[in-house]
């Protein structure tokens, strides 16, 4: 009837318990789990959490950025070295929510705006398990159906150089609204030409994913109307948007290329 809360000093032990216990959910910031707990979700019998200091660690000074799963959006906003991610973190909820919402949690949110940016950064997920850590590319992780039992220990990625990360979130309500869709893009330029573009969407499929057709179409192109035309032509490839309470699949499909164009032409910085 009442829920059991188990707190572990070491994240690895929390991961172990999470893997074994049925009806267990891992609580980081609480914004997702506590809502279900308040609603007496019968799936939740045990809350597992960890006080491991490493779980809120930010390593951002070097070329390789590593953000622990328990890092909050507020912590990202407080870190000068992560300025390129500030527009993304600010797009998540209101100030109070950002003090709780974590990077790990965002990978499980249906419309992970932050996860979308991480995809565009080609991030790797580091999963904590009972038997130590496992690394895998973020888009593989997000592509998986069964993310439930996983515990995201950290995400890591190469700091973007030159061209900043581009991000746009489409929402009906300002400043804090649920995202209809969001687009993140990393567009490294070599003598004015895109090389190794990374473009990701949220809100266009069950989980955030990389728009690989767009990435390919941008390769070697310049970021002007003519240069991006092929990319816009394939903007919707692989998308499977749904009707939901805030927007229809039709509208999402219609406006995706518009916002992608504005982002690529530099009009869409968040």
């Amino acid at each position, binding site marked *: *009837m*009442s829920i059991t809360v188990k707190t572990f000093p070491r994240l690895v032990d929390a991961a172990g318990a999470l893997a074994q216990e049925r009806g267990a959910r891992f609580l980081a910031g609480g914004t997702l789990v506590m809502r279900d707990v308040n*609603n*007496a979700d*019968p799936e939740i019998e045990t809350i597992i959490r960890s006080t491991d200091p490493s779980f809120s660690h930010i390593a951002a000074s070097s070329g390789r950025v590593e953000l622990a799963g328990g890092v909050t959006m507020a912590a990202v906003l407080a870190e000068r070295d992560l300025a390129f991610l500030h527009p993304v973190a600010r797009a998540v909820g209101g100030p109070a929510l950002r003090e709780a919402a974590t990077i790990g949690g965002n990978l499980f949110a249906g419309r992970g705006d932050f996860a979308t940016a991480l995809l565009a950064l080609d991030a790797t997920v580091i999963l904590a398990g009972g038997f130590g850590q496992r690394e895998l590319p973020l888009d593989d992780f997000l592509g998986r159906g069964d993310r439930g039992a996983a515990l995201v220990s950290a995400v890591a990625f190469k700091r973007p150089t030159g061209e900043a990360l581009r991000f746009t979130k489409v929402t009906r309500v300002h400043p804090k609204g649920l995202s209809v869709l969001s687009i993140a893009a990393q567009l490294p330029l070599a003598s004015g030409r895109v090389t190794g573009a990374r473009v990701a969407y949220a809100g266009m499929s069950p989980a955030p994913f990389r728009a690989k057709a767009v990435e390919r179409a941008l390769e070697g192109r310049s970021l002007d109307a003519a240069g991006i035309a092929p990319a816009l032509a394939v903007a919707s490839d692989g998308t499977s948007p749904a009707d939901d309470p805030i927007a229809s699949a039709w509208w999402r499909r219609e406006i995706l290329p518009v916002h992608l164009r504005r982002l690529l032409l530099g009009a869409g910085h968040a």
Partner: protein
Amino acid sequence: MLEFRKDIFADERDDNLMEIGQPTQRQDMLGHVTGTSPYYDDHRFANLLHLKILRSPHAHARIRSIDDSVAARAPGVKRIIRAADVPVNLNTLLGLIQFGKDDEPSLATDIVRYKGEPILGVVATSERAALEALALVRVSYDPLPAVFDVEEALKPGAPSVNPSYPKNTFEYYGKYDHQKLRYGDADAAFAQADVVLDERYQMSPIEHAPTETNGSIAVPDTNGRFIVYTSTQALFFSLDTSAKINAMPSNQLHFIGGTVGGGFGGKVDTMTEPLSILAARLTGAPVRYRFSRHEEMQFGSPRGGERIYIKDGVMKDGRIIARKVRAYFDSGAYTRLSSYAVVKCAAHIPGPYTIPNVHADVFCVFTNRTPATAMRGFGVTALDFALECQMDKGATAIGMDPLEYRILNAYRDGDMKAHRREAKNCALIECAQVAAEKANWPLRDEFRKMSSRKDGGAAHVGGAADRTRAPASPAATRAPASTPQRVAYERPAPASPPRTAPAAPPPRSAQPPPPAAPAGSTHGAPRFSSVFGTRRR
């Protein structure tokens, strides 16, 4: 930015008052900013129990069986409340004013008629315990065909939603399936109209979304009475409804409320009090029944959807000579207050305009959705949306400025309304003039001079002026090509005189055009001279 135009209608007011008109601080403001205003849930009781409700997952279904045996033994559960426990399990809100038949159970008996309809309650030591027990109740249903569209619901063979009203429409005067409004002869007038506009409008349902959800706490008192702390918007409506459903003398109930976290109409329906009182009676303990946000959003009554068809007959000179309205209120599965809104809507047709031929049919329709209720502007908001979009289309159709088109047709003191009462205390024209001036919306001189007052305000301000719809003096008339010369603004008598003779709109042709306005009259033209750059006094 708010500013008063005390100069307008000043002659009708005595502004020599002490407290009235003062920006006095709200009596409740200190409580609000210190978090000490006592809302219903700000009362604490030892051993408070919590009521949670099992709701139908189907829009329309027969309940085959309910098994709550496991739930009844679940930890923390004090009592299961079933339909059979409700002393009077059929009610309609407006029964208190003898309007409509009892048609809604507090807990569904054999059939559920909308998704979210209450079926059974669990009273437990915590909300969590109650929710966990609800998850253990087993109900089997035979789904029934459902109808969700108001016009589909009126077609022959449509599923019947509400057994008290088998034809899916509320009954008016025991003889009609809708409310009528008949004035003049609209159909005859359409034949004479230069332009006829036939349009369809749809108002969406609206959730009141008060930040405090509906709720109440019923507390057994020392003397056999019950004290009920409630979020209701209508204290005695809720008290008398609760007394009826619980078959109790009303003086056994002591309702305390009055400080409410927003309502907007969504707290008129007495949705929690009858069952929290029943639960307190059955357990002998204080019981709270509080809507979750999800319940408030989806299962608390919304403003109902309204579909409205409007047909206008318009003359090239801007006069609207006929308006026909057909409107459908989506009442959901039960009546609640939509039946009343329908009459209010009919009374509001054709809007704040004098139209000699008006014809309306307004229906209260039952569908398999959450019952609708009152909301801010009840019966009028949707109609105003439809009417004012229609006015814009009318103006566009004849190439007239939309605001001048409204002023031209606006009702004035002494005009006859479609529900056969004389218009009094009108001020639509003045609102239009003042707003236009502020927004720099150009109005031609004659429209700036018009007035809502019978004699154009002349009697009130000494200076007569051309503020009626009598012909403007040739000099004053500088109508652009887009607007045909107003030969006469007077209204034609209805094509066929209405039943009650005095109700016929006064033929304007009988009125001689008043003399032109002298400069310096304090009401009318000079006030709007700022449009020409002169500063307003």
